């Protein structure tokens, strides 16, 4: 399953709920959720802990827009818009967390 | 949507005649808009237009008149950085009129 999250991890509990719920599969961070993919953030530990179970992807145009492309946590897969589409096609279902 | 025709090409503008796409702008369009504003472009006019475009390029905004006046004074000298000089060039307002000719949006806060 593909989980898509678009909320900042330090402002909303969305990503935390997603990580607490998702058993496995892919996680794609887009829009303000890309802040969760950066080193030095207070959420870094929680995301890293989930990286064993989930394959984490980040939408690069959103990370670049926020000036943080050079601070991506190691082990996260960068994707472009085509990669985004690829993930939705490769998974049998997906949830966009609101 | 309104538009203007310059050299056989159409360019989209808003209802007040400001260019919609900043990248459309060129000197011919500037001359055309100036004519519609009854302004005969001189080197002094171009100096202000070029200054506005550089300011926009750097800060992504069209400066308010007060800010423009101060900034011009800093760059081009006190004899140009005052309302009398700038309104002499652009009688309907250096912000409003010059920005239109420069292909920039109306200054923020300008009504």
């Amino acid at each position: 399953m593909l989980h898509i999250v678009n909320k900042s991890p330090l402002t909303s509990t969305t990503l935390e709920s997603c990580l607490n719920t998702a058993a496995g599969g892919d996680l794609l961070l887009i829009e303000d959720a890309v802040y969760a993919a950066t080193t030095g953030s207070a959420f870094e530990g929680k995301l890293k802990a989930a990286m064993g179970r989930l394959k984490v992807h980040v939408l690069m145009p959103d990370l670049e827009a926020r000036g943080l492309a050079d601070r991506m946590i190691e082990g996260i897969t960068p994707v472009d818009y085509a990669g985004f589409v690829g993930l939705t096609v490769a998974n049998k279902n997906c949830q966009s967390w609101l | 949507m309104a538009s203007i025709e310059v050299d056989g090409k159409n360019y989209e503008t808003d209802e007040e005649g400001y260019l919609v796409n900043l990248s459309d702008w060129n000197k011919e369009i500037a001359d055309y808009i100036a004519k519609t504003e009854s302004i005969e472009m001189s080197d002094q006019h171009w100096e202000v237009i070029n200054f506005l475009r550089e300011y926009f390029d750097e800060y992504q905004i069209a400066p308010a008149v007060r800010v423009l006046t101060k900034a011009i004074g800093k760059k081009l000298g006190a004899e140009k950085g005052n309302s009398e000089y700038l309104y002499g060039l652009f009688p309907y307002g250096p912000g409003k009129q010059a920005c239109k000719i420069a292909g920039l949006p109306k200054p923020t806060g300008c009504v």
Partner: protein
Amino acid sequence: MSDVKKFMFVNRKAPYGTIYALESLEVVLITAAFDQDVSLAFMDDGVYQLKKGQQTKGIETKNFSPTYRALEDYDVEKLYVEKEAMEARGLSEEDFIVDVTVLSRAEMGAMMDEQDVVLSF
């Protein structure tokens, strides 16, 4: 001349994900025309607004971060960043596009208390 009031704009949202950051900036530029005592507070995700190196071509959105550098021209020179929020996001003063004053939460609270008008974004 009317009395000068102290206005504080409190920015707590990240840029681009929502419109708050840009709206706040535009209101600040308008307010600056009225010769008031304007200060900007950046708290929580709002500190991300000032991050250097924003490149918005890929999301086809206007990069408004250079406009914070124009605030000085508008005589808006009081920019406060919440220390705890900055640190929780792995950021430091060198990461910001403009010079700021870093305040602890307690100092920020005291600064808010001093204001006549506080506008929240």
